């Protein structure tokens, strides 16, 4: 292994980052401690059972939905060569650029009687039957699955196209049937990727505010928000947050348990699997399935945005203020993504190599940002900053800080996955050839995990670009971003103003997604 001194430097840095990330948790624990036993009891008996059931049910349903859509599409794309395959990768990733509240808003208006789907429904089933309501658990599941399945797709597709031929070939040579190979080799190999993808999806579900509030489905997040803003009851809100954190952390531990039971290192020389050329019939099957997914996850929402944006354009509603929102959004997202990637590095390097209570603790602390609801993170940071560094308050730095805390786990997850691919022997070789720790990091480690760092950057960038609740609270005075405008305009029913902002979110993310699909292409070479 590496020298202890070097590891401990990483350890110290990692600890500092983890503690910083856990700042909002301090606020939550502090406020929750002020709850009396009686209040806890009433919280426990009146609200928790229903909230727990609603939240868990939703998480399970969305997880299943995302596995169904994500794994099936990933397998088709990774293992078959067909016309439009590269396009398909793009189409599967692009729904990530659409925020959940935009999805919810669009599908609400599409399924209304005078919406496109509503009219289609009346045409097919008669005017007397009404299209299905979205204001229930299935509606929310539908929306959140479409908004989240791409995470599963991305990670599974990456794992499948990176898995090495040697293992599957060895199995075939031992006489295993294709189904057996699938069941005993391929699936176990992608299991860590599926678990990581589902973890991302479930964490998004647990912390989602936009869709559940638009569709009025009572989860922890929505209930916490209502406690805070309707009743100004911060203590109960903190109490509920604490339960939510417990829930999410136990889920994370479970996921890590599944993921860490096995670790694979592939030899440097083995060949990657080449996708097989698809037959005509397979082309038909592949594109029917991918097309259905894309239709709902991308084409319909995009068409809606384009139609309404066109209205806005014709009415001259896109002015210099609008471009200001675009600039603000890009600014925050770029800053947050860059800071998060750098801060995540010591954490992921340390945790990938050292398994101890300390490294586990750090990872759990760094995950806190992701499991706390956005409004709670914002309030936590706001209180702590005002108490300790008041001169910082009101500037952009505080907002960026909140975004980093919120999305640091994304960066850690994807960098860690990359570091795990880095065989320890490579690092040791660098050291034994006389490279110092920094040189080794710069010349050996970083180039190898570059792919992981890029995806970390992109994931944080995209999520920051879409972030709503914390931005609403922490943005500097009058500093409006695209999501803030979407939210303001949509709550005033100014669809023609919300649509161009949503469209800009998608367009603004496209060049970034290009980076994300690049490593996938490199792997095929």
């Amino acid at each position, binding site marked *: 292994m590496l020298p202890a001194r070097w590891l401990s430097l990483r350890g110290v840095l990692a600890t500092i980052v983890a503690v910083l990330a856990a700042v909002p948790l301090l606020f939550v624990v502090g406020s929750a401690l002020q709850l009396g036993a009686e209040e806890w009891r009433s919280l426990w008996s009146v609200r928790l059972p229903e909230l727990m059931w609603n939240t868990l049910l939703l998480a399970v349903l969305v997880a299943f939905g995302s596995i169904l859509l994500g794994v099936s599409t990933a397998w088709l794309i990774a293992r078959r060569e067909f016309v439009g395959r590269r396009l398909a990768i793009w189409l599967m990733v692009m729904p990530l650029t659409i925020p959940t509240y935009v999805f919810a808003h669009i599908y609400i208006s599409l399924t209304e*009687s005078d919406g496109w789907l509503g009219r289609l429904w009346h045409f097919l089933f008669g005017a007397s039957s009404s299209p299905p309501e979205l204001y229930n658990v299935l509606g929310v599941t539908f929306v959140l699955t479409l908004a989240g399945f791409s995470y599963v797709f991305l990670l599974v597709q990456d794992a499948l196209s990176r898995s090495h031929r040697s293992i599957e070939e060895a199995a075939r040579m031992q006489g295993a049937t294709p189904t057996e190979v699938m069941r005993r080799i391929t699936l176990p190999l992608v299991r860590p990727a599926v678990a990581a993808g589902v973890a991302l999806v479930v964490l998004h579900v647990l912390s989602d505010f936009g869709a559940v509030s638009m569709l009025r489905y009572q989860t922890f997040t929505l209930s916490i928000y209502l406690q805070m803003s309707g009743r100004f009851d911060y203590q109960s809100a903190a109490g509920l947050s604490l339960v939510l954190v417990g829930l999410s952390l136990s889920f994370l531990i479970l996921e890590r348990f599944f993921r860490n039971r096995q670790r694979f290192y592939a030899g440097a020389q083995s060949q990657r699997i080449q996708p097989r050329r698809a037959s005509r019939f397979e082309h038909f099957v592949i594109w029917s399935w991918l097309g259905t997914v894309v239709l709902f996850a991308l084409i319909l929402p995009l068409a809606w945005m384009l139609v309404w944006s066109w209205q806005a354009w014709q009415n001259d509603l896109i002015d210099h203020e609008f471009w200001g929102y675009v600039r603000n959004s890009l600014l925050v997202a*770029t*800053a947050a993504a*860059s800071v998060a990637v750098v801060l995540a590095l010591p954490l992921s390097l340390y945790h990938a190599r050292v398994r101890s209570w300390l490294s586990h603790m750090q990872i759990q602390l760094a995950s806190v940002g992701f499991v706390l609801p956005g409004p709670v993170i914002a309030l936590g940071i706001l209180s702590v900053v*005002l108490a300790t560094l008041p001169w910082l*308050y009101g500037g952009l730095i505080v907002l960026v800080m909140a975004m980093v805390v919120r999305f640091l786990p994304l960066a850690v997850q994807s960098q860690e996955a990359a570091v795990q691919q880095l065989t320890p022997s490579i690092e040791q070789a660098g050291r034994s050839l006389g490279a110092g720790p920094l040189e080794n990091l710069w010349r050996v480690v970083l180039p190898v995990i570059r792919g992981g760092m890029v995806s970390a*950057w992109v994931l944080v960038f995209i999520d920051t670009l879409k972030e709503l609740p914390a931005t609403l609270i922490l943005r500097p005075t009058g500093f409006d971003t695209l999501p803030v405008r979407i939210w303001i305009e949509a709550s005033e029913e100014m669809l023609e103003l919300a649509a161009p902002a949503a469209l800009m979110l998608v367009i603004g993310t496209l060049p970034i997604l290009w980076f994300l699909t690049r490593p996938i292409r490199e792997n095929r070479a």
Partner: protein
Amino acid sequence: MRFSVRHLWVLGVLLTGTASNTAFSEDALVIYSGRSDKFVKPVLAAFTAETGIPVKIHAGKSTALLTKLKLEGNRTTADLFISNDAGNLYKGSEFGLFQAIPDDILGVIPAGSRAKNKQWVGLSARARVLVVNTGDTTVEFVKSVFDLADPRLQGKLAITHSSNESYIAGVTVYMLEVGKEKTAAWLTGMKGNVRRSVYNKHSKIVADVAAGKKAIGLVNHYYIYRHLAKHPDAPISIRLPDQGKDGMGVAWNVAGIAISRYSKKAEQAQALVKFLVGEKGQAQFAKVNREYPVRPGIAAAKEVPAAGSFKVADVPMEELGRQRTATLDLLESVGMP
């Protein structure tokens, strides 16, 4: 390296640096506004044109902005707070976030529409009314909001969900007029009539009543006229509930403004409040949203029923804040969707 993470990092740092310098013009009055931008911007532009004082709007939901104001304490950048609900204004003064407005400014507004402790003042008022489909004769019996609990309205009634501010304020008024028990029974009846299907937006209620999908809805008056302005032939009309000798009158709520306790520009802030309660400001502030100016003698938009021509429930606006938690508890105990 084809693509360098370092480049992005450097770029990020540069952008962050430039951003913190994009000056937040120090001389502008900062307003935390829970009211729609489009209803606030024109009148504020008129103020700036008249006085030369620039204004910056920080938009959001009233309750969230109030939370922000509370947590920021003396570090707040806000000079003023605008809310569409008197309940929030009351809460803010209860938290000690505002400062008193001088009498010579407040005096022109009737006492019922402003705070006793002078910490906030109402600017425009809205009435809680019924919208009915003119083609539907089965709802003619509805004369009071309490008739909305009648089982004859099964599937015909449209109301918003119970975290809507206007809805909560309305329920508070009814609760104060007739007591908790009767209000709870009324809510239970409505709950049965809507069959868990409630609306996100008042505007959708009006649209669905116009389309004949619902027969009757409970809304703020201006939503009806907003719809009629777009669709002049829509088969809807306003019905003012609880009129007549024994009626309690329609529920009333005001949008209003307060000056932040920690404002460093109290003088300019007062100038803005003075402008908004002035004749010109009053007409403009209310008219863009077809609301009723709070100051007597200023006419509302001509399409709405003239102020004074109908009865208004006699509940001081401060009660909307004082009783809000009680109302929320009541709504929750009934399990209103």
